[in-house]
């Protein structure tokens, strides 16, 4: 029987799934175009949350405008990261990339402790406490609703960027055959910088929304990164629609598990979903062979 409690759990699953979608999409874009596995992607989410928090508290900016500031600032951080760390090791042994990104986890976490302290914060939203009733005993907060809408807008904008712009075309071409793209005149280095900045911006947006909905501290990045990896595997490596489906499935699965079985089953059920998907369809839901 579908109870109001279950509907509430599903709604929260969709909201948290939306944050996973942003994170996983950024990770997926970077992997798809650059073939780079960035384990420090969750730390960009964390930095995004702190930047949004800082501009809302120090400048009094609206929390939802702070999402844009976080996206822009984290994108700039992404440019620096790509230029000064990953570019140096790109194309070399995969282990080098992995260890660089693992090292960055500690760099970001310690930098956050130095800059903001090891204190837990939450971003104050102008919509805090407001709810939209969806019927008897079921309601959704305006912050949750806003998060869903913002993710939809970002995903539509991303779709248009990839399908309708020259840089989007270059990114898609590079993701399919980077050498051929280069021969066709695509500036691969610029594509890489843009791709990494775009992926970082998505993580920044995820972080700002996370900070509006949930409390955060310098250690919050690790778990979402693991979940984002699981989501892109469920959805299919390199597939953005796959990441969307994977994110929603993951968020709903873990919250349904919490509702029926308790929170200790949250990760077990979600990763069981990953195994089931891989057994039935090893390339992920929308993945293609060879990706």
């Amino acid at each position, binding site marked *: 029987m579908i109870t109001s409690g279950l509907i509430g759990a599903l709604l929260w699953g969709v909201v948290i799934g939306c944050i996973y979608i942003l994170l996983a999409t950024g990770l997926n874009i970077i992997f798809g175009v650059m073939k780079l596995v960035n384990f420090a992607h969750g730390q960009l989410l964390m930095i995004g949350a702190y930047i949004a928090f800082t501009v809302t508290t120090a400048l009094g900016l609206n929390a939802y405008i702070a999402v844009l500031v976080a996206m822009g600032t984290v994108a700039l951080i992404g440019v620096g990261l790509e230029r000064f760390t990953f570019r140096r090791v790109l194309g070399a042994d995969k282990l080098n990339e992995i260890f660089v990104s693992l090292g960055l986890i500690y760099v970001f976490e310690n930098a956050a402790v130095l800059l903001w302290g090891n204190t837990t914060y939450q971003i104050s939203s102008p919509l805090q*406490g407001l709810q939209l009733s969806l019927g008897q005993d079921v309601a959704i907060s305006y912050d*949750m609703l806003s998060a869903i809408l913002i993710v939809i807008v970002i995903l539509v904008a991303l779709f248009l960027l990839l399908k309708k712009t020259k840089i989007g075309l270059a990114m898609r071409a590079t993701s399919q055959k980077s050498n051929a793209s280069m021969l066709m005149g695509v500036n691969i280095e610029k594509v890489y910088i843009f791709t990494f900045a775009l992926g970082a911006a998505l993580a920044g947006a995820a972080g700002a929304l996370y900070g509006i909905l949930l409390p955060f501290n310098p250690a919050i990045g690790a778990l979402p990164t693991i979940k984002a990896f699981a989501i892109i595997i469920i959805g299919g490596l390199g597939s953005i629609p796959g990441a969307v489906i994977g994110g929603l499935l993951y968020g709903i699965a873990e919250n349904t598990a919490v509702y029926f079985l308790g929170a*200790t089953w949250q990760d077990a059920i979600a990763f069981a979903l990953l195994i089931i998907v891989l057994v039935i369809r090893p390339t992920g839901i929308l993945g293609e062979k060879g990706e």
Partner: protein
Amino acid sequence: MQKKLIIVIAIAIVAVAGIVAGWQLTQLPSAEARPIKIGLVAGYQLAEGQDMDRAAKLAVKEINDAGGVYVDEWHTSVEIELVPIDTENDSPDNSRGPVTQAVEEEQVDLLIGGYTSSGTLTNQKVAIDNRVPYIITGASSSLVTRRGPQANYGGLPEGDPLRVDDAEGMSYMFHYCTTTADYSTTVVKFFNDTMKPLLDSTYGFDDSRNLRLAILYRNDAFGKGVAADSKSIIETNNLPIDIVAERNYPTDAISFQTDLTAIKQAKPDAVYVVDFIANTAEIIKEGQRDVGLNTVYIAVECCEDPQFYTLLGEYGASQLLESKFAPYAGPPYYVDAIGTYVTNYQQANDKLPGMMGADTYDAFYIAKNAIERAGTVDKAAVRDAIESCSLDQMLVLTETGKIQFSVGTDYHEIAPVTFIEQLVWNADAQECRSVIVYPATAPGVGNLKQADFVLPEGYVPGSP
């Protein structure tokens, strides 16, 4: 005759001078005199650990400014040297190494601190093995003093890795903190004595209707301990309280909406939240803000910290906090010493103190008193002196009004007084402040209660 008298007086003067000089020689400060090294075991990454550090620094400064600690065998007073022992987040993995270094390399004379039960159970092994007196001011698990033979291993089954067979080593452990049983007792008694009668009279419930309690706790020794103790106390005392929902979550959980949604379905009269500062504040906020679970939430004493009040904001209004130290419930405070401590702490740190630091602050005075009575820094003698401590209660209230360990037991615990605070929104501070609502009195204090408990605005009781 006169000449003889002069000679006798001269001899007497020489003799007295010799005795005085000899006595003075024996009273010269010993060459062995040195500062007393006290290690503070604290997770400096945590708000609670930072509070402990600030409280320790305040106590050490006060003691040193007042002349230090007189050590009889050295014939002089010496200063306390605070040795920070940083266990980072106080997890078991990070806990043992720093304590080992402090004990074996820094050669600390005494340890004070400990925060999480799991971290303290790990790091106290170093003190047990090395016979270092350890005044444990955190860790709500009673196992920190009861897992040895003198407490029948705290009920742990044979073969349990937490059991400690070293009775002598365990005798160096002193628990200056409440246990999960202490505060669960206060919480369930509050529900029985105060909240149930108020619900019955407000909503016309029949006296036979039991209070409907939900417990939401972190899935670790701390959370499980509180849940088990609460149920046991309800059952043992046959209290009219039903546990209508019991849910736990992993320690790394970030969101609690789904658990709270499930709890809402169980229609409780109150939710007992067992976690540390950040998660407890988040649960209380999510419950009201996102889930619409407009009930009474009660948090446990480790949340008595400025960060908790800041994180809660207006969502803390009318909610409850079990505690044994209430820096937000004044001025005037229920004990003058708390007013002095709060003022000095604020002057030194520009912020209000938390509860973890209060235990720590007292512990430094317990250590000073013990060393002075022992007259030595010999660890066995200091242990014996702590064991026979009978100082007047300081910041933490006790059932006897005295700081006494092991009254009637072979293991070392105090008998603290715990109470229930209700948070009240303070528009000037833009944060909640608190008033004590239960119990009415405390030994050595008299009246403790500052206001009557009231149901929160918009409160929805559980099923009739």
